[in-house]
C-alpha cells in the first residue's frame, strides 16, 4: 500500500517536472514571435539597442510606417493581391477537388487508389521543375504580372492536398444515405450539395484553410511571375531583405501583420492540420 502510494507520488512529481520542461520549451520556441510582437510596438530607437530594451515605451509608429502613412510604399495593393490569389485559388481548388474526391470515395472509379497516388506524385514534383516554361509562357502570352496566373498555379499546388484530404472526409459519409437520395431521384449536383456537403463540411472547411495558408505563403512563383501590379504580400516583404537604417520595428510590424491571416487560419484548422500536411496519411 505504502509502496504504491510512494510510486504514485514519485510518478506525479516526475510528471510535473516534465510538464515544466514542456512549458519551458514551448516558451523558448515562442520567444522569437513574442519578441517580434513586442519590438513592433517599440520606437525604432528602442528597437535597436543592445542590451535589448524590454520595458521601453509602446508606440504604433512601426505600424504607421508599415502602412505607408510615413511616406513609404503602401502594402495594401500587395495584401489585396494576396487575398485575391489565396481566396480565388482556394475556391477553385474546392470546385475541382470536391467532385474528384467524390469519384474517389463515395462512388469510386476503378483503380481509384492509382488515381489518388497520381495526384500525390504531382505534389512531389518540385516547383523549379516547371518554373522556366511557365515564365516563358507567361511572357509570350502577356500574363506576366497578372494575379490570375498565380491563381491557376496555386490551384495546381494545392489540388493534390485537397483531393487527398477530401477523399478521406468523404469516405466517412455513409453510403446508405446517398443511395436513399438516389432512389428518391436526386441527381449528382443535388446529392453533393444536399447530402454529402453537410456531413463533410468541417473537413472541407479545414481543407480550405490549409490551401489558403499555402497560397498566402508562396514566394517563388510570385517573385518570378509578378512585378509592380500583381505583387503579393511575401514579395512585398522581400523589400526588407537589405537593411535600411533603423527599421526593425517596421519589419516586425510588417512580418506580424502579413502572418496574422496564416496564424488565424492555422489555429482554426489546428485539429486537421496534421492530416493536411501529411497529405492525408495521418489522421
Amino acid at each position, binding site marked *: 500500500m505504502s509502496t504504491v502510494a510512494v510510486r504514485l507520488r514519485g510518478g506525479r512529481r516526475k510528471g510535473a517536472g516534465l510538464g515544466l520542461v514542456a512549458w519551458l520549451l514551448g516558451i523558448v520556441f515562442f520567444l522569437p514571435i513574442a519578441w517580434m510582437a513586442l519590438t513592433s510596438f517599440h520606437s525604432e530607437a528602442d528597437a535597436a539597442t543592445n542590451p*535589448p530594451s524590454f520595458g521601453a515605451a509602446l508606440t504604433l509608429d512601426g505600424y504607421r510606417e508599415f502602412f505607408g502613412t510615413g511616406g513609404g510604399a503602401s502594402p495594401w495593393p500587395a495584401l489585396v493581391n494576396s487575398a485575391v490569389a489565396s481566396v480565388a485559388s482556394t475556391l477553385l481548388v474546392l470546385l*475541382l477537388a470536391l467532385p474528384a474526391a467524390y469519384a474517389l470515395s463515395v462512388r469510386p472509379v476503378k483503380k481509384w487508389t492509382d488515381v489518388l497516388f497520381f495526384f500525390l506524385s504531382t505534389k512531389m514534383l518540385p516547383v523549379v521543375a516547371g518554373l522556366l516554361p511557365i515564365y516563358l509562357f507567361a511572357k509570350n502570352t502577356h500574363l506576366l504580372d497578372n494575379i490570375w496566373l498565380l491563381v491557376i498555379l496555386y490551384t495546381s499546388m494545392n489540388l493534390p492536398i485537397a483531393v487527398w484530404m477530401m477523399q478521406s472526409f468523404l469516405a466517412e459519409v455513409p453510403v446508405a444515405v446517398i443511395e436513399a437520395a438516389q432512389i428518391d431521384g436526386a441527381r449528382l449536383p443535388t446529392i453533393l450539395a444536399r447530402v454529402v456537403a453537410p456531413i463533410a463540411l468541417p473537413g472541407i472547411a479545414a481543407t480550405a484553410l490549409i490551401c489558403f495558408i499555402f497560397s498566402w505563403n508562396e514566394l517563388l512563383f510570385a517573385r518570378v511571375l509578378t512585378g509592380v501590379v500583381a505583387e503579393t504580400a511575401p514579395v512585398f516583404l522581400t523589400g526588407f531583405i537589405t537593411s535600411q537604417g533603423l527599421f526593425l520595428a517596421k519589419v516586425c510590424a510588417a512580418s506580424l501583420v502579413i502572418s496574422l491571416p496564416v496564424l488565424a487560419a492555422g489555429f482554426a484548422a489546428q485539429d486537421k492540420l496534421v492530416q493536411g500536411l501529411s497529405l492525408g*496519411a495521418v489522421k
Partner: protein
Amino acid sequence: MTATTTAPIAATPARTKGVPSARLKAWATRAPLLPALVFMIVVTQLPFVATLVISFFDWNALYPKARHFTGLDNYRQVLTDADLRHSVWTTVLLTVAVVVVSLVLGLALALLLDRRFRGRGVVRTLLIAPFLVVPVAAALLWKHVLYNPEYGLLNGLLHYVGGPQPDWISNTPLLAVEASLVWQWTPFMMLILLAGLQSRDHQQIEAARVDGASDWQIFRHLTLPHLRRYLELGALLGSIYIVQNFDAVFTITSGGLGTANLPYTVYQSFYQAHENGLASAAGVLVVIGSIVIATFALRVVSSLFREEVARG
C-alpha cells in the same frame, strides 16, 4: 515523374431512360474526376516536359538567335561546374541537417506533449506558432531581429551573460539558415509524431507496465517500433518540402556565402543569368533527386493508407 494516366475528355452522363450501357455508366462515374485530372496534367506535367526539352538546348535568353540543340552538354556543365556542384552539396547538407534535427526535437516535444499536464493545450499552441509564420517573415525575423550582430536578440541575450558578440550570418551562414528552418519545421515533425503517439495501443502499454516493464523498455520496444513509420513519413515529407526551399536561402543570405541550394541556383541561372538551358538541366536534376525521395515517401504513405482503409 510524368503522367502515366491518359486523360480522356469528359463524356456527358446518360440522360435517356432505360438501361444505360455499362460503358456509359463507367463514364458517368468518371466524369466528376476529369476536370481535376486534366487540370493537373496541363498545369504540372506539360511544363515539366517543356523543361526536359529545353534542358537539351544551349539557350541564353539574351541571345535567342544562337539557340541550338546540344544534347547532354548542359548536364555535363551542371555536373562539372564548381558552383553548381557546390549547390548540389549545399542542398543535401541543408536538407539532411534540418530534417534530422527537427525530427529529433519534434520527437522529444511530442513525447513531452503526450503526457497530461496543466496547460498542455496552451503549450501545444505555443509550439505550433513558428510553423504558422509566413516563411519570408520568419526568415526576416531571424535575419534582422535575432541574428543582427549589433542589436539582434541573440547577441542582446549573450550580452547579459558577458558572452561574445558573433556575426552569426557571416560566421556560420549555412548554420544560420538551418537554424531558422529547424525552428519552423520542428512543429511539423512534432504534430506528425504526436498523432503517431496517440494512435498507440494503450491497453498493450498498460499490460506491459503491469508486467513490470520500465518506461525506457516500453519506449524502446513498444513506442519506437510503432513510431517508425511516422518518423519515416515526417522525414520524407520534410525532405520533399526542404529540398525545394527557396524562401529562407533567398531572404537570409540571398544565396551568398556558399548557401545557394539547387532551387536558388535554378532561379538565379534563368532569372538573372538568363541561361535557360542550364537552368532547365539543373531543374531536371532537382526532379531526379526528388523522385528518389518521393518513391520512398509514396511507399510509406501507401502502407499507412492501406492500413487506414483496412481499419475503416
